[in-house]
């Protein structure tokens, strides 16, 4: 077959979005394309999808790319839908789709792939060279169809791609089985049949679907795993998911803000399915998504009656068609999600649901496949699944089981979602801030690093107050080095001991199984227990002691024989705490040391003044740190001079800006590490707004922070706000969804200011 010239425009065939609008999944797309290559002829790729991770558009994009290549690989995409009610009807639809897409490709006419055509119509459209074999295929199909042998019919239809005569190209079948879960029952188990037929068909294929179901089907079909490759498809990561929100919002013409975008990403855990459904709902309801309130109102609407509601309701109805059982199931699932006892026996479930064992098995199997429960045959763990599922269950429980007034449930759901939003973001920001620790430990691989990076006191003695360049060159000249071990396994300490949840968050404490020298022997095995202690000041000995004992206790319980405790604190440790660490052979590092270590185990990685559309308003965005507050202060000086503020007032403004910037840097786990500064010139005043994204500190509530009773050092660090209030005429915290925004006003007093 001839290849088209590369400069010819790319045609969208099945893709619902353009290539440019398809966000993320680059490596997965590449992997699927590789599966179509001759080197993988006859091999299958199982695309194991996390529920709601979304796979359909990925496969459609792959289809379009292969279609446009015009090579001898003939792409076939078939998505199993809920409208096909039996394995037989789905298989017949597959046959129809196969013939249609084959002819579309052979005729190089994308429109044929979309048209509503019968097999007879397609036969008339078949190119002369293909007419004969397609006619035979249709005749054979007609015979098998009326043979009353469903299994034979299903196998015949699914095996159609192998009937392509030699020299007419090779089929590459991509089967989207995201909805395959609806075919768990019946005489013919569709997933198993697909794998049996495709596995022996001699053509390359991709079978995508819910991971638990696809793996189970492969085992049931006794698939030859040597001829199968696996690709796991999880939710989008924190780089790709915001891009998806932006692209879909633009396509759906939904206005969004960065704060709302990030909330969506976190609330839906990067799920393309939920994000796309949600933005579609926003378009349908002509709703902007600019504030947390906008997002949560629509979210609650969605839970009560939108796309998300329908998705969960369909799963529940298919899982448990009988209403009485369904209500009992909702009750059981919600109580498990809300309570402490998440795990119970199969028998307990059977008694609570009042169903026969085989019926319960079917229910649990469906829930297990959707990952709403974890069921191993004997015990059932509920309370798992995405947040939206838990919120949906709670609503259904209150409406259907408790019969509470709908208005009350709606109001509570909205209030709960709004209250949760800042916590959701705070958790995310803290995770970002702690990425350095996780990443650093995971990259330990017998590198030699200066020992002083694990000794806060030693580091402080040598380098406190030194310029970064001086520190880097000093570290390069250090002769006392330690060899890092090789990390072979790293997990949050909560994965080992859930009690730790009361003390720290998931990404604040890690257990790393390591081997010294990379030698895998008992003698060389050391478990590193690393904890990041939240503190704005140097951590004292009591806190260090408590943390050490906590970690040591956990190590004893878990049977770790050799441990290395490593504590990290933002500002390091007091002298006494450092001595304690040394006595216990534990390491202690400040965040600065961690940063330096991180740059040694990996290569690590900042804003001009812009005038806004308003001629009296200036916007500066500066990266946090590096004395960048001076840039803002100097800009303010220039602007204040235009307004003829007296030098003394200008100094006061500058100092206030410096303090506000320091506060923004110190008090937020800022995701972008930027400070946004707006200077608005009015006839009698200068209004300055300093904003940053991140966590709103509890003490920055606009009221006096009441530091009198706190320790002197803490009090000193609380001086910034006190100074700002004294130096400026009006100081006000503006309410923002994400982070802080401090508005400061200085009035121009004729003759005095």
């Amino acid at each position: 077959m001839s290849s088209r010239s590369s400069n010819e425009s790319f045609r969208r065939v099945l893709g619902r979005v353009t290539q440019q609008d398809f966000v993320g999944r680059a490596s997965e797309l590449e992997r699927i394309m590789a599966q179509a290559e001759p080197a993988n002829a006859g091999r299958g790729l199982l695309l194991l999808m996390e529920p709601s991770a979304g796979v359909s558009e990925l496969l459609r994009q792959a289809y379009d790319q292969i279609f446009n290549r015009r090579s001898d690989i003939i792409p076939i995409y078939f998505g199993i839908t809920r409208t096909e009610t039996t394995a037989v009807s789905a298989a017949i639809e597959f046959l129809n789709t196969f013939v249609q897409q084959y002819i579309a490709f052979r005729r190089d006419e994308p429109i044929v792939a979309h048209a509503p055509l019968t097999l007879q119509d397609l036969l008339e459209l078949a190119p002369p060279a293909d007419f004969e074999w397609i006619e035979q295929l249709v005749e054979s199909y007609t015979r098998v169809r009326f043979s009353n042998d469903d299994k034979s019919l299903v196998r015949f239809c699914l095996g159609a791609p192998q009937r392509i005569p030699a020299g007419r190209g090779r089929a590459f079948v991509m089967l989207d089985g995201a909805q395959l879960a609806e075919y768990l029952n019946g005489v013919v188990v569709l997933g198993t049949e697909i794998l049996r037929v495709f596995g022996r068909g001699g053509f390359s294929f991709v079978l995508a679907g819910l991971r638990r179901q696809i793996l189970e089907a492969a085992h049931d079909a006794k698939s030859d795993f040597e001829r199968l490759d696996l690709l796991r498809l999880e939710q989008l990561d924190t780089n790709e998911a915001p891009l998806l929100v932006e692209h879909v919002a633009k396509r759906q013409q939904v206005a969004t803000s960065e704060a709302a975008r990030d909330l969506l990403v976190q609330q839906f855990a990067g799920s393309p399915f939920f994000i796309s459904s949600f933005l579609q709902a926003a378009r349908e309801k002509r709703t902007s998504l600019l504030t947390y309130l906008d997002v949560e109102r629509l979210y609650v609407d969605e839970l009560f009656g939108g796309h998300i509601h329908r998705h969960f309701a369909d799963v529940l109805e298919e899982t448990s068609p009988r209403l009485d059982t369904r209500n009992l199931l909702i009750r059981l699932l919600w109580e498990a999600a809300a309570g402490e006892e998440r795990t119970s026996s199969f028998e307990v479930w059977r008694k609570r649901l009042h169903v026969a064992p085989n019926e319960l098995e079917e229910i649990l199997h469906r829930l297990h496949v959707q990952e709403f429960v974890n069921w191993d045959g004997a015990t059932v763990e509920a309370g798992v699944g995405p947040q939206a599922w838990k919120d949906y269950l709670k609503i259904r429980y209150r409406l259907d089981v408790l019969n509470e007034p709908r208005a009350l449930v709606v109001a509570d759901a909205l209030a709960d979602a709004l209250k949760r939003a800042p916590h959701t973001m705070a958790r995310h920001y803290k995770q970002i801030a702690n990425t350095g620790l996780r990443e650093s430990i995971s990259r330990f691989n017998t590198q030699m690093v200066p020992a002083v990076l694990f000794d806060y006191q030693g580091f402080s003695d040598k380098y406190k107050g030194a310029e970064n360049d001086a520190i880097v060159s000093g570290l390069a000249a250090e002769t006392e080095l330690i060899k890092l071990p090789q990390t072979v396994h790293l997990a949050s300490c909560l994965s080992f001991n859930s009690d730790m949840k009361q003390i720290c968050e998931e990404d604040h404490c890690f257990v790393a199984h390591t081997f010294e020298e990379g030698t895998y022997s008992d003698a060389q095995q050391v478990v590193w227990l690393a904890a990041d202690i939240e503190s704005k000041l140097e951590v004292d000995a009591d806190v260090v002691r408590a943390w050490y004992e906590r970690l040591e206790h956990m190590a004893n319980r878990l049977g770790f024989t050799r441990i290395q405790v490593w504590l990290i604190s933002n500002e390091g440790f007091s002298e006494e705490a450092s001595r304690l660490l040394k006595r216990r052979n534990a390491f202690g590092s400040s965040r600065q040391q961690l940063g330096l270590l991180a740059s040694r185990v990996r290569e690590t990685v900042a804003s001009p003044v812009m005038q806004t559309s308003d001629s009296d308003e200036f916007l500066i965005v500066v990266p946090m740190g590096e004395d960048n507050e001076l840039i803002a202060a100097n800009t303010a000086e220039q602007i204040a001079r235009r307004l003829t503020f007296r030098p003394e007032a200008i100094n006061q403004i500058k100092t206030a800006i410096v303090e506000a910037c320091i506060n923004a840097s110190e008090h937020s786990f800022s995701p972008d590490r930027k400070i946004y500064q707006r200077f608005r010139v009015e006839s009698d005043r200068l209004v300055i707004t300093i904003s940053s994204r991140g966590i709103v500190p509890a003490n920055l509530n606009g009221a006096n922070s009441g530091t009198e009773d706190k320790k002197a050092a803490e009090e000193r660090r609380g001086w910034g706000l006190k100074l700002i209030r004294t130096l400026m005429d009006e100081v006000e915290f503006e309410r923002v969804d994400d982070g802080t925004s401090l508005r400061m006003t200085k009035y121009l007093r004729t003759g005095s200011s």
Partner: protein
Amino acid sequence: MDTPSGKLVRSHCVGTTAVVYASDYLNKLTGEKIERECRRQLNCGCRALVIDFSDTKLVNSIGISILLGIIDVAEKNGAQIVFSDVNHPTVELFEMLGLTRHVVLAKDESEALMNLSRLETTPPVVH
């Protein structure tokens, strides 16, 4: 005994008094440098400190909290401390945050040294 200029803190000694020069912006980093230099001078036997702010145009609250730390260290070492040539806005800040209750301010370095020599010759008050 001037230390080299550049990124280090400039200082020199007059008798047993160390004069340490603060930079144009007193923040955490430069404050820590001054603290380090003051500690070094005290460890070397200096009995009094003058911190000269003639170059200092701007200070922030972290810098001021470090100055308080230096005052504490000086007190613990029985050393006198004087701040010289502090500009008016900075004096205001020091007053707002109560720093002037703990330190003597002098117009310039000469006045600071003179104040210190006067204090040295004054016999200690016995309670």
